[in-house]
């Protein structure tokens, strides 16, 4: 078998498994979602009363939602859902009536990508770099300090970091906005005011995400580097008198391999957004969309969001697996290198 054919077969296998996995998740989530107890219309009606709205106003605001509730037997609904799914139609939202779920997910995804992707990449770069230093200088104070910072940040829940940063930089010393993705004063587009506002509002969410993820990367990288440092090929390279930069490259390339898979999965997971960060900073991404869809029992939106997260992870898995063969010769040649 030629190499091209082998790759094609490998990709086809991955895709087939991915499609089956997506179907299984879509089916399971469809039935689980329908089993979540609670009447969304009654819930919304009572919530409006709780907010001080008069019964008439609350009735007017909710009566029409009955038309958006799923109808027919569960099986009929499932068949309809799968049929629509094949056409890329995720249905209509209940919490935002009259709007397609695909539109809501698309809008939320655009807000998730900036903070979560930036946070993931920043924390990865920072964690990996600091991890190498922490391993090399593990007997010194710098190494201890870096390892300690990793352990500490790894142990603090993301919502604690988020609330702490909000309390400091948005309330006590209000130099950063406490919520929202961009100032509404600026006309959307490629103008400095709008872009500046976008970045300004992204600072706290990105820093929170970076700090929350950094600990994991630095600890994992340090541990990998320490393990690789004891390998014979590093000793041989040093004995052969190879330049320090080349030895470092050997070291980093081998130590980073396991982290690469995690990074790929993290990027896949970004379609799940970051629930706590988006909630704390009122960032209208996929995580917040999922939370809101659950509390409002928006079945179509819940199903759509679960599906997009699943697809993200499946695709990331496939990409990670394929890229792994590129960066690790042992995998490429069937583990005989």
């Amino acid at each position, binding site marked *: 078998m030629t190499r091209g054919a082998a790759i094609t077969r490998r990709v086809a296998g991955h895709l087939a498994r991915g499609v089956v996995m997506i179907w299984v998740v879509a089916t399971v989530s469809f039935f689980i979602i329908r089993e979540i107890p609670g009447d969304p219309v009654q819930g919304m009606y009572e919530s409006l009363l709780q907010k001080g709205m008069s019964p008439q106003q609350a009735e007017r605001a909710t009566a029409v939602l009955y038309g958006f509730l799923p109808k027919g037997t569960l099986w009929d609904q499932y068949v309809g859902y799968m049929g629509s799914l094949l056409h890329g139609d995720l249905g209509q939202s209940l919490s935002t009536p009259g709007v397609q779920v695909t539109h809501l997910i698309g809008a939320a995804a655009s807000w998730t990508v900036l903070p979560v992707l930036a946070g993931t990449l920043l924390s990865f770069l920072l964690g990996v770099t600091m991890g190498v230093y922490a391993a090399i200088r593990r007997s010194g104070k710098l190494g201890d300090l870096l390892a300690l910072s990793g352990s500490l940040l790894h142990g603090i829940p993301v919502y604690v970091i988020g609330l702490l940063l909000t309390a400091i930089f948005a309330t006590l010393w209000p130099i950063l906005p406490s*919520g929202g993705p961009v*100032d509404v004063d600026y006309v959307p587009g490629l103008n400095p005011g709008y872009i500046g506002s976008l970045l300004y509002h992204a600072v706290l969410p990105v820093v929170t995400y970076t700090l929350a993820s950094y600990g994991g990367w630095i600890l994992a990288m340090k541990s990998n580097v320490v393990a690789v440092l004891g390998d014979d090929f590093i000793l041989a390279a040093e004995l052969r008198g190879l330049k320090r930069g080349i030895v470092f490259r050997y070291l980093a390339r081998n130590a980073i391999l396991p982290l690469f898979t995690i990074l790929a999965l993290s990027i896949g997971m970004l379609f799940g957004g970051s629930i706590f960060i988006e909630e704390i900073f009122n960032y209208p991404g996929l995580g917040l969309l999922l939370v809101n869809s659950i509390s409002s029992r928006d079945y179509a939106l819940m199903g759509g969001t679960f599906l997009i997260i699943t697809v993200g992870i499946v695709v990331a898995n496939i990409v990670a697996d394929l890229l792994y063969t590129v960066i690790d010769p042992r995998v490429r040649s069937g583990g005989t290198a």
Partner: protein
Amino acid sequence: MKRLATMAALASIVTASACGGAGQVDGAGPGGIFTTIDGSKQINASAPINPFNPVGSVFAGYNGMELAWPKNDPTDPNVFYPAIARSWTETPDQSQVVIHLQPNARWSDGRPVTSEDVKVSIGLAYTQGGTAYALDPAAAGAAADVRIVDPATVEITQGANKSSMFLSNLLSTVVVPAHVYGRLLPGNFWQTLKVAQYSSGPAADRARASITGLADKVIAFAPKQDVSAGPFVLERVNPGAALLKRNPYFYNNKVIGPDKVKVLNYTGNEQIWNYLISGQLDNAPFTSVPAAVMDRIRQVSGSGVISGYSPVVTSLAFNQAHKPYDNVHVRRALAYLIDRRQVTRIASPEGGTPAVTTSGIHARAAKAWLGGGFDALNPYRLDPAKAAAELKAAGMTRRGGRWALPDGKPWKVEIHVPASFSDWVSAAKSITSQLGDHGIDASVVTTADYTLYLSELAQGKYDIGFWLIGLGPSPYNIYQRIYGQANGWQLFGGRLKHVAPGTEGNWMGGPQTVQAGGARVDPGQLTGDLNFASPARQKQIIGTLAEVTNQQLPVVQLWDYVNTQFVNTSRYTGFPPNDSEALRLSSGVWMQLGMIRKRQA
């Protein structure tokens, strides 16, 4: 070097943006920007600019207009401030209402607001159903005929099944421009409506289905731009905020202070607290605030609170189908053991006043309805001795300092509450602690979210739960919370029926008839009668229902709500005073009424 330059450029953009702060807005004139939140909904930038969409980017009082705005009257639901309707007249039985429009009212595109706009708005309201626009011919208080008298006058006739809420429901109609929304109604709409309302059989069913079938289309309708008859018109919206600019054609434009309004979004109360602590908001409607946060808000320069009547009451409701809560002596004993003052101080120090007694009505409305009769009600003051006597009367026994059920089994009181309502959770903890002090084993059980809580409550899974009551000012709405669907009485199309406890949402499980004033009465029937009774008869019915509620205690009234609004007078002044009749309306309506002026330096 190149990378450094890029980073420096980005940093300078961010710094410039940060230094600009909230004040850097182009186009804001001397009136400045008024910043607030919409307490009734979160901003959804994906939703259309359409008032028929529950989450649409239309904000009542700013770019959303009704015929009139309801005053915060404790007893009369039919008193309103003029809005699109300058004035109105009605026959004594509200069978006919004539509405006179503001002569100078114009849409933000310059076209006049006419009777045709009102008629189209009413037509669109029929597609949504409910209140004055029910298609069921038997429904009480439905509009039967809409007639344009002249371009500024509309006459609306009520159907045969009258309701005293007709005027109120009619004046709450949202008005939209016919030249934008009119095409949503098919050409034969009004003929179809007649068939739906006055015929029976398959033709009428088809007509009703045809009208309600328009609902999705109406809700999804997304005008390209906002056309508003209010003081403001939407300039743009994003997921974080909506920005509205002045509508130069507003009929009373000269009284509007701010040039723009910014409505900030929020995902929870914590964000509103942060906005208030950082001084960003000029006004925020009622928000539950813990005492420590309240102290910090008060420290902000210009920060203040205005408060007034809010016809909402928090109660502890019993499932009378569950033992021992079917026994009135048990319910009374619990009422005697709850220190409502302490509960309110812990749970809602700013947003509530301890209930004076249990009548089913907010104390202020109760005094107005009942007069001297209010003082005659049993106040159920904290009295452990009376509680012990009631428990003994219920057959309970005290063993080892703890109360046990008549059969000798331990009595475990479980109070259910949704976990997301911090004030209710605090109240429940306070109550269980108090009951524990008096020998009753009590615990708080939280439910993950409100929707689940309501679902389990309706299924009759709880013995005791928190429940909102006293939703005035309409007397029917007040008692419908106690003697309505939750307690077995169902009113559909003007017909009342009672269902057995544990079925069709009857989780309160009270008896269908009770003894009151020497006669047996049906509280649900009396509540239904409030819909169409004369004012004198309404007063009589309310007296009976208050007495029944006070004696039977299907609920224990804990605290009456206080409408607490946050204001900041650093930038704007002229907010309504305490107890203003406009307090429950948005600050956009306050502006329409000539309130809120820019603070002069």
